[in-house]
């Protein structure tokens, strides 16, 4: 009896294996064709500065081998397992109502508490100097992207306007803070709202001409505007010093009471009688960007419930219906652009204060793409998802700098930083193919009858911009 059952199964398994083998061979051929020139041969300059070819057939074999093995494992084991799981899920048609665990229910609260106790935690475990890297490279860096992601979410996730030039407003914020702070000596706390306002103005200026465009056209024009602003920053050397950038941007003070400049009489180490260290400033910046990011989240949550927020979401779902219900789409789009740009401006002035140096190099299209990727991978509209995506994508690439043990495996010439953006690009593709709706693929309805029910993202529509 047992044999009778298992025989066809065995057969299926073996045909599975041969099929997978055939697929692996095809994949190997394609990979060989793709990589034979670009990997198998390397162009190098010799002493006379002429290009010569260096042969690397071993590396090519590794590439092709990895492709074949990967495809074989996927076709023979992963795909059947996935199909089985899908079939099982389809069989259990009525989903059970699972009581959400405590952790899941209070995830946001716990995450915020963790973020607030993160610096003291790191300082106590790693000491003052050891914590610098974690607070600065990881904490501040990720939080900047979280804030940018939440800002862009207003434009892309709520209003459904695809913006590929978001970094332009970030640049406006950064340059307005640095120029005004250097030439007029104004403090960060005055210039923060000024930078936000200026960026919002630019949002309106750039938003106004493109109001009639939708979808991909809008994306490409915003990309063009982003590039124009960057090119102006490069070429308007009288004001922006071009590619040299602006350096010596003043630090942020704690509302003028405590300073982080060693020469200042109110230097924090003197005021509190602490040992001298650069970490205090980083920890202060960490809390500053954390608060700014939380304000962004708070504002966008509250705006969603206001008439303008509902208008944004209506616009995303259906622009024609929106217009026929008497919503002024011009104003709605412009407010979305301006609000999103304002938060980018805030983040930009923070960025300038943190770096102490700005140059057009920091505002390339890649940054816009990274922020947009974070928003989309996070699930478009879900604040938690965007934060998770930022941690995964930015933290993941930052952690690559730390993997010194790879040098032991691949030899001392191996520099993991070189592979950072390559892996970032691959991760974008893989995550998108694996989870097209992002990490958190559900939306909380703003308008509901009696009780809220989470809407699966597959039921929601995104507008045409």
């Amino acid at each position, binding site marked *: 009896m047992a044999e009778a059952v298992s025989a066809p199964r065995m057969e299926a398994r073996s045909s599975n294996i041969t099929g997978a083998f055939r697929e692996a061979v095809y994949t190997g051929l394609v990979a060989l064709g*793709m990589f034979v020139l670009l990997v198998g041969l390397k162009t190098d300059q010799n002493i006379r500065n002429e*290009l010569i070819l260096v042969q690397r057939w071993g590396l090519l074999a590794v590439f092709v081998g990895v492709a074949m093995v990967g495809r074989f494992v996927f076709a023979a084991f992963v795909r059947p397992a996935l199909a089985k799981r899908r079939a099982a899920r389809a069989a259990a048609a009525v989903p059970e109502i699972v009581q959400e665990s405590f952790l899941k229910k209070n995830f946001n609260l716990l995450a915020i508490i963790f973020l607030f106790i993160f610096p003291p935690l790191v300082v106590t475990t790693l000491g003052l100097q050891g914590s610098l890297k974690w607070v600065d490279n990881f904490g501040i860096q990720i939080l900047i992207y979280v804030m940018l992601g939440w800002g862009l979410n207003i434009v892309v996730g709520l209003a459904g306007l695809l913006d590929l030039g978001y970094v332009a407003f970030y640049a406006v914020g950064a340059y307005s803070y640095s120029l005004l702070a250097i030439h007029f000596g104004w403090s960060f706390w005055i210039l923060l709202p000024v930078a936000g306002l200026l960026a919002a103005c630019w949002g309106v200026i750039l938003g106004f001409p493109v109001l009639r*465009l939708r979808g991909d056209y809008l994306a*490409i024009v915003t990309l*063009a505007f982003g590039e124009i602003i960057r090119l*102006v920053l490069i070429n308007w050397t009288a004001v922006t010093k071009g590619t040299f950038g602006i350096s010596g941007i003043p630090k942020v003070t704690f509302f003028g009471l405590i300073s982080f400049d060693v020469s200042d009489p109110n230097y924090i180490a003197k005021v509190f009688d602490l040992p001298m260290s650069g970490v205090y400033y980083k920890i202060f910046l960490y809390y500053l960007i954390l608060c700014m990011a939380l304000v962004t989240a708070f504002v966008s949550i509250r705006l969603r419930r206001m008439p303008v927020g509902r208008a944004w979401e209506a616009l995303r779902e259906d622009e024609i219906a929106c217009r026929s219900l008497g919503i002024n789409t011009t104003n709605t789009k412009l407010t979305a652009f301006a609000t999103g740009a304002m938060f980018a401006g805030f983040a930009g002035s923070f960025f300038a204060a943190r770096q102490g140096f700005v140059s057009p190099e920091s505002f390339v299209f890649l940054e816009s793409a990274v922020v947009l990727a974070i928003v989309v991978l996070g699930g478009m509209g879900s604040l938690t998802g965007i934060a998770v995506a930022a941690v995964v994508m930015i933290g993941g690439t930052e952690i690559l700098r730390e993997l010194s043990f790879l040098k032991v495996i691949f030899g001392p010439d191996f520099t993991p930083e070189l592979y950072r953006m390559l892996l970032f690009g*691959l991760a*974008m*593709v893989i995550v998108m193919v694996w989870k097209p709706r992002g990490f958190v693929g559900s939306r909380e309805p703003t308008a509901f009858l009696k009780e809220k029910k989470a809407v699966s993202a597959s039921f929601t529509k995104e507008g045409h911009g």
Partner: protein
Amino acid sequence: MQYFIQQLINGLTLGSIYGLIAIGYTMVYGIIGMINFAHGDVFMVGAFISLIVFLILASLFGGVHVVLFLLIMMAVAIVMTGLWNWAIERVAYRPLRGSFRLAPLITAIGMSITLSNFVQVTQGPRNKPIPPLIHGDFAIDGVTISLKQVIIGVVTVVLLAIFWYVVNRTPLGRAQRACEQDRKMAALLGIDVDRTISITFIMGAALAGVAGTLFLMYYGVVVFSDGFVPGVKAFTAAVLGGIGSIPGAVVGGVLIGVIESLWSAYFSIDYKDVAAFSVLAIVLIFMPSGLMGRPEVEKV
């Protein structure tokens, strides 16, 4: 006047290269409605492939046989970039067909980042110069046309003729046009939509591969980051000509090339990209369907 004509010719040359890249954008957009953001980087990969082929040939034959070299470089570039774009479509775009609109755009941006960094990692980050392939120019009434420019013009025209024939006169082209109009209906009528889309990607990439070879021949240098700016400008050209329209892509490419070189000749070379992008914005604002595109009709 001579100066003007000289710049016009330079612009036409540049514009032919943009036009060849733009066709890839416009065809893919026409058939599946996505911006294939990685197309500019496919062009860069094509330039690199022809660079490597050139080095192989130079070391095999010693001297430089121009015509033979160019033909082999183009042929290999066509095959290889076609294979690359086919694989990219298979891996990154096909699983997301029917998903929401932003998903393929994000994978395309991811692919663009991946391709340029892949080339940077495998081939090194430095500029790759080659010795000038072709010498000689013609002087007519004070205007010099280099042999390179003539070759670029001839190759572009020949390719466009072949391309026009394929799209308008063959069953394959008919299938492509059918898929462009209505994918579901085309499938119902027995057209293998997946295959047609794959072939569209391969055709676009082949033109980008040739553009890469011509780019390498014209400038004599290529670097891993060369895909982005020509890519964006070619997309600008496609939009300017009316996206989805193949003659439009060529006209748009030539216009962008001419505007760029006239702008750098008469105004400021630093702001030439600003000029190209401003043209894009102005055209889209006042003529959203481009020069030769069909106006978008909204059905409710």
